[in-house]
């Protein structure tokens, strides 16, 4: 295999493994993440056979909470990525194909969206709307995270639409929808999937930052970011509390980043506009 393909395979493998842990984890490790084991003492125990990753200060099993966190964080990232992908693709295609006026409006929207720090927008939104359940937070994350993707889609779609095969389709009488669905979208699939994978990674990291500020996925639902924040006070006395979710998050984001890089580089349809 060529190096990008091998890198992509490894990254995809890691992400798939995390996905399997999230889906099947509760079956393999059937411990309630919210169960308090040592109610009177409420101390965090070191890793042991009964608790491979120890317990947290509320005497809950860290492994079980980590698995629960994987479910939350991965679904959170997926939902946010799907929303960002949908909005970004739609806006980018509309800007590129639906005429100059639409292009100007969406272009201005993209410029504004990219100029404002996203974390700040999210914090303002969560402050204005109150603490959101995780799914709505993820949707909000997607709604604030499509601008870069839309810009990419717009520039690629514009280049494709100016190319010969799109012109041939217009000469045949193809409308905007056919142009978008048949001629542009299939040719930007690589760009789109890379951008979606990155959006997924960003959403997970941003949620962690929100959790740190106290505006993340609300307790008692445990996200990786929430677990890291909860564990940061015991960084030296019980390092496993913050370390385990940090490792999980960093592994996931690194794999996503590597996958996105590999997709960009390995796209076999990269030379669409090239002339002989």
């Amino acid at each position, binding site marked *: 295999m060529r190096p990008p393909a091998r890198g992509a395979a490894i990254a995809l493998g890691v992400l798939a493994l995390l996905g399997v842990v999230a889906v099947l984890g509760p079956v393999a490790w059937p411990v309630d993440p919210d169960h308090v084991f040592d109610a009177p003492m409420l101390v965090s125990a070191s890793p042991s056979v009964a608790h491979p990753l120890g317990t947290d200060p509320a005497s809950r099993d860290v492994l079980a909470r980590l698995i629960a966190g994987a479910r939350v964080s991965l679904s959170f990232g997926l939902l946010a990525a799907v929303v960002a992908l949908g909005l970004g693709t739609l806006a980018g295609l509309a800007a590129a194909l639906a005429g100059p006026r639409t292009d100007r409006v969406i272009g201005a929207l993209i410029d504004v969206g990219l100029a404002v720090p996203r974390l700040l927008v999210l914090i303002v939104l969560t402050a204005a709307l109150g603490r959101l359940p995780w799914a709505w937070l993820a949707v909000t994350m997607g709604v604030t995270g499509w601008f870069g993707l839309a810009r990419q889609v717009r520039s690629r779609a514009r280049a494709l639409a100016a190319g*010969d*095969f799109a012109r041939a389709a217009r*000469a045949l009488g193809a409308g905007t929808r056919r142009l978008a669905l*048949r*001629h542009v979208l299939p040719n930007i699939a690589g760009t789109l999937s890379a951008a979606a994978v990155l959006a997924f990674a960003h959403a997970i990291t941003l949620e962690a930052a929100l959790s740190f500020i106290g505006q993340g996925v609300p307790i008692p639902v445990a996200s990786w970011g929430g677990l890291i924040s909860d564990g940061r006070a015991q960084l030296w006395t019980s390092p496993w509390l913050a370390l385990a979710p940090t490792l999980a998050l960093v592994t996931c984001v690194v794999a996503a980043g590597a996958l996105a890089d590999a997709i960009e580089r390995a796209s076999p349809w990269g030379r669409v506009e090239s*002339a*002989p």
Partner: protein
Amino acid sequence: MSGPAHPDVAPLVRARDLQRHFPVGGGLFRAPTGAIRAVDGVSLDIARGETLALVGESGSGKTTTGRLILHLDVPTGGTVHFDGTDLASLAPAPLRAMRRRMQLVFQDPFGSLNPRMTIGDTVKEGLLIHRLAEGAEADRRTRALLEEVGLRADWANRYPHEFSGGQRQRVGIARALSVGPDFVVLDEPVSALDVSVQAQVINLLMDLQKQRGLTYLFIAHDLSVVEHVADRVAVMYLGRIVELAPRDAIFAEPLHPYAQALRSAVPVADPTVRARRIVLAGEPPSPADPPTGCPFHPRCHHPARDESCARLVPPLEEKAPAHLVACHKQPPTTITWEAQQVAGATRQPERHLPVLALDARTD
């Protein structure tokens, strides 16, 4: 091929004073500082069944002219009538319906096919758009089209990257034919192909024209390709037509100095002929900053060239029956000698035929 334009029959395509100016410079708060005059006042008629060749070097506006005629690019001035209908007057839906009747074949066999569609789907697309056929019937017609252009019907499920340049070009032709057009713009259809393949594709195009009664606008960057294809030839320079004449007239007696240069560049098969090329001085000027007067005057080799060429824009006028030339130094001309003198002329118009002289010597 069929005969030249017949003046009594309404032409299939009638373009009048077509212009396409692209604004340059300027920004959000500044007006454009100028315009690139890609096409600057082109008028031509194309009769049913004829092949009009449009010849010029890159940047002459020939490709843009082709797109304007198909209304794939909207002209900034002028009109196009297709079979009597003003294309600018059509709403989007009737225009799309009209597209069935006029098609386009591209120069680049690599960029002109969607790499993510099988060639069968590419050829079938037009049938589906115009609801000419559906399902199995569409598949059957797709296969017939592939065979008509010399491809195997069972290749329909393959992707463009599996084909050579010549084969892809045949796919592009099949795509154009799928909707049963009357008129096809061939935008340098063989320029990107190997010489050996060029002849095959040209022959295919000529056969198709005969069988289907097609009308062609054949765009090329030199005269050699169109020699055996065209009924009439229009030569473009810097967005304008400088000579428009029947094929034989252009080859035997090119009158515009630029057309003469193009004519002299056509390779001659006879080894006894001493090929003397007219080599033009300098590069073609930028369409953003065209010369004043006759656009060709800075590179012109006409012996009577003088000050008036930089001041007067020579009109496209008839020098012989059906032979239009834009040069007031080639007689006869409607620009009187007095008018030329007012514009600073110092040399009388005189007939200048360097290419003809060359041919005569070899006889």
